[in-house]
């Protein structure tokens, strides 16, 4: 096993924001999972995937684990998704219907909690 990549967690207005790299896969998913689960302890959490162009099942696994934990803490995990490739993966896996998605970090941080899924629906 390679040493895990460390994912920095930035606090923006009291909300932890984890930014994912261009590729999220089996080589760095453990590090991502650790950062996400730590942040999901706060309840509210934003994962900024706007730079990400590839996310495999290991990456999805980390996101889903954090999503479940955030829900259990009474909060929610919000995704910022910009790339078509990642949007496509979330559509195929159905995750776009259960994890709220936003097109910008600003939006993810300011939108009130009311809906789930990506906007606009496609």
């Amino acid at each position, binding site marked *: *096993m390679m040493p895990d990549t460390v994912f920095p967690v930035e606090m923006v207005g009291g909300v932890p924001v984890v930014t994912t790299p261009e590729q999220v896969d089996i080589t760095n998913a453990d590090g991502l999972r650790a950062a996400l689960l730590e942040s999901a302890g706060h309840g509210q959490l934003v994962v900024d995937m706007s730079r990400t162009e590839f996310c495999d099942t*290991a990456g999805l*696994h980390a996101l889903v684990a954090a999503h*479940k934990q955030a829900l259990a803490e009474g909060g929610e995990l919000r995704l910022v998704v910009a790339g078509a490739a990642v949007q496509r993966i979330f559509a*195929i*896996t*159905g*995750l776009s*219907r259960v994890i709220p998605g936003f097109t910008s970090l600003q939006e993810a941080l300011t939108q009130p909690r009311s809906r789930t899924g990506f906007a606009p629906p496609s």
Partner: protein
Amino acid sequence: MTAVDPVPVEARLRDIQSITDAALSRLDELGLLAELLDRIREIMHVDTAAVLLLDASSGQLIATAAVGLEEEVRQGVRIPVGRGFAGRIAAEGRPVVLDHVDHTTVLNPILWDKGINSMMGVPMTAGRKVIGVLHVGSLTHRRFTSYDIELLQLAADRAATAVQSMMAQADRVASTALQLSLVPSALPEVSGIRMAARYVPGRGVLGGDWYDVFTLPSGELCVAIGDVAGSGLAAAVIMGRMRSALRAYALETPDPGEVLDRLDRKMRHFEPDALATVLYAVIDTAREQMRICLAGHFAPVIAVPELPAEPVRAAAGLMVGIGDAARRPVTTVTIPPGALLCFYTDGLIERPGELIDDGLARLCRVVTAQPVETACAAVMAALIGSEPARDDVALLMIRRRTEGDDDA
């Protein structure tokens, strides 16, 4: 404590050499652990030495090798992380020295029954993770020095390397055996249908890709393919459970959506951390129609004679392991005579730095309504080529026979 170390340099070198001796690496890992414990006992003048390994799933340390304390291993001693002597070392990730041993300091009664007076233990680490504990004990009162701790830590590092390689090897052997028992070794002979398949593990590590083909008492043909998140033995075990559960639900209900719904509920209850994509389809006895349901998996590609191949238009449904009130849609697909259905896992079409649709388009260009073995070979050659696959690849081709068809 003492500022001057009483151990002469030559003795130190001899001690260190005894532990790092290259001859040790010629032993298999369990042999190495036993030999290492023997040498530790000798050079450190202690009476007992033992290795406990962390079982991550239970959060317990399990006695794996011991000298002077063999009953620890024989009785399968388990110590929860955080409790007792070894549990504290694992929880804190640093050495612990005990100058008296009784029920207040040590959890395992074997250690106090044995009459051990002083103990010292260090964590075994790989990367930044604690994978076990190495401890030594003395029947007579003993004040362990910083030199003793250093030496024991050196031995623990050596043992950790051996254990890592032992566990990786065991995981590989077991998951390979399991995987081979799970993916059908021979596809069933079914009327009106020809089938061929490929399974290639990625980078020598088995992931959680699987497929299954079986008939129902009605004569209908069922096809399942999926990808369990994770790799190695853990993923293979979950895969095996999913495969059996899906077969059981397939016998109970004709609706593919209901089968996946039950499978999802079963997985969420018994394997709450598992996440998987699954495709499940039922082909009727005339082999004219297929009812298909997707749980986060790619729709198959269909190639009809004389037409370009395209992905089957089946609505997406949520992956297994998340939970959502919505039912996954079931789509009915017509299979014209001679048409070829290509089921696959993401390893076939996903490449970093490339859109999935590009990979999918590449697949559609290669799939044509031809005999299944030729079709498999053509797809593997075009999409995998001679590069070692970075992820598992599972591929299953099913073709509806035409009259006078000689697809063998």
